[in-house]
């Protein structure tokens, strides 16, 4: 699937601005950005629910499976009935729909509640049913809007392992606002901010670009750290100063430099940016 120069405008407000990317077969892509960055709008355009104001989507007529952030089901339908209907509406025969529905529901672990009404499902179970209805017709592309953000840590772990299994046979694009989710399963990351794509690449390449390795030197006294930071123009957080590794590539270099100061030091360590920090850094570009 290829999206080229996607743009969506509601009135004068530009929600998505000239976004282009390619989803390679059997890869997982994470669409990352703060709330309101336009993630849901992009997914809606890919599903065909929204028409782009400009730009094109090429998907060679393959079937798509879609899981909205808050999937809503008819409360009076049972789990099996709904999944079967979803399969039928995607063009499967009655017989096929039945066997695929059973298959999809046991894949997501709902085989115990086939005849339960959807209204009686818990949040985590609804999310699983959401996955089941999205994969029941075996789509080539799976689009997921914030698949884990509404779940508790256990549900989140279950969902990620389901998605990892699906990744082997399906092309996946999912949105999230938490980079740690993306770390678990991703071949490509798209960073979205105010509707525009501000950075994209594989996780290692992004990490290499933004991890910014430094030495963290912690002094005994706040005053010493303060003085050191003003004298050498380095970042200061409480009693710790951050010395870029570009200026002192090894510990020896750093130690010989530090020996010029006599203020007592308690700790020296190497410091790389966490994913959260990388996220903040990319977003502040």
């Amino acid at each position: 699937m290829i999206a080229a120069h996607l743009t969506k405008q509601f009135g004068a407000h530009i929600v998505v601005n000239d976004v282009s990317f390619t989803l390679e077969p059997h890869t997982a892509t994470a669409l990352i950005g703060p709330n309101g960055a336009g993630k849901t709008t992009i997914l809606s355009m890919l599903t065909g629910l929204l028409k782009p104001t400009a730009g094109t989507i090429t998907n060679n007529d393959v079937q798509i499976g879609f899981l909205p952030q808050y999937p809503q089901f008819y409360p009076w339908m049972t789990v099996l009935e709904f999944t079967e209907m979803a399969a039928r509406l995607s063009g499967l025969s009655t017989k096929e729909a039945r066997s695929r529905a059973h298959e999809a529901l046991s894949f997501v672990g709902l085989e115990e509640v086939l005849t339960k009404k959807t209204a009686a499902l818990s949040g985590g179970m609804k999310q699983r049913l959401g996955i089941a209805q999205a994969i029941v017709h075996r789509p080539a592309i799976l689009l997921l809007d914030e698949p884990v953000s509404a779940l508790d840590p256990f549900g989140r772990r279950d969902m990620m392992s389901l998605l990892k299994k699906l990744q082997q046979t399906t092309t996946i694009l999912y949105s999230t606002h938490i980079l740690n989710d993306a770390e678990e399963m991703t071949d490509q990351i798209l960073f979205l901010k105010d509707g525009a794509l501000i950075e994209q690449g594989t996780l290692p390449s992004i990490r290499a670009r933004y991890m910014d390795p430094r030495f963290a030197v912690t002094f005994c006294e706040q005053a010493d750290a303060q003085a050191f930071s003003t004298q050498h123009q380095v970042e200061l957080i409480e009693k710790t100063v951050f010395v870029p590794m570009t200026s002192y590539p090894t510990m020896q270099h750093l130690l010989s430099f530090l020996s010029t100061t006599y203020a007592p030091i308690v700790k020296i360590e190497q410091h790389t940016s966490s994913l959260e920090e990388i996220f903040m850094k990319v977003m502040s570009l």
Partner: protein
Amino acid sequence: MIILLKKEWLEMLRSYRIVWLPLLFILLGISDPLTNYYMEDILATVGNMPDGFSMTMPELAPSDLLIASLGQFQMIGLLVIVAITASMISRERQNGTATLIYVRPVSNFSIYMSKLIAMALLTLVCTIAGFGASMYYTYLLYGGVSTTAFLLLMLFYWLWLLMVIATTITFSALWTTSIAMTVAIVLFPLGILLDSVIGAYWHYSPYKLALYGASWLTTQSDYLWGTCSIVVAWTIFVSLLGIWATGWKRSTTKI
């Protein structure tokens, strides 16, 4: 389309709509023959009539009672039908249940027609149940009417209901539930009231189709076929508009 129709049918069953709406029509159908029959007793119990007061009740023909029942269906029955029809498409968009349907290769025609056909069948059941009950009581208490006239009466009433539901579903496709319901209630239950008050000035009015249909019981109206054509033409037009509106508003489904 058969898949969506099956879904509509299941919803009707599980929400008991297929039972309670016909029951309501039966109640409405029974009430007029029965209250008129016992009118004297009711007046005697409720009103404090002076001794020796006697009132001659007008002699009612069977057709009068069927037409009275028709009046009941046109007020309460129509109001209830409009109220449940006005939310059929808009509610699914507003609560997001439509999203999982709309992302699949489902045509606007199937979405709209599944709703229309489901409601058409339900209103057919209501028409038969309501007039059937009215006829049964009228027959027991007052006497019968010609079978052909009775069947035609039901047919034309159903035709009118078909126009009402097609229009209301189209409103539901065009707007939100609250707007669709308001417009439909003003147009139909209130419109029919207005037509009966000031409608003496025109003959060809969709609102009068049911009454003209009832005219088979007595003397056939000259305006029946003209009015009937207007109703059929409007129903077709409004259905096409509804199918288009269903597609036009697809993107407003809550995600």
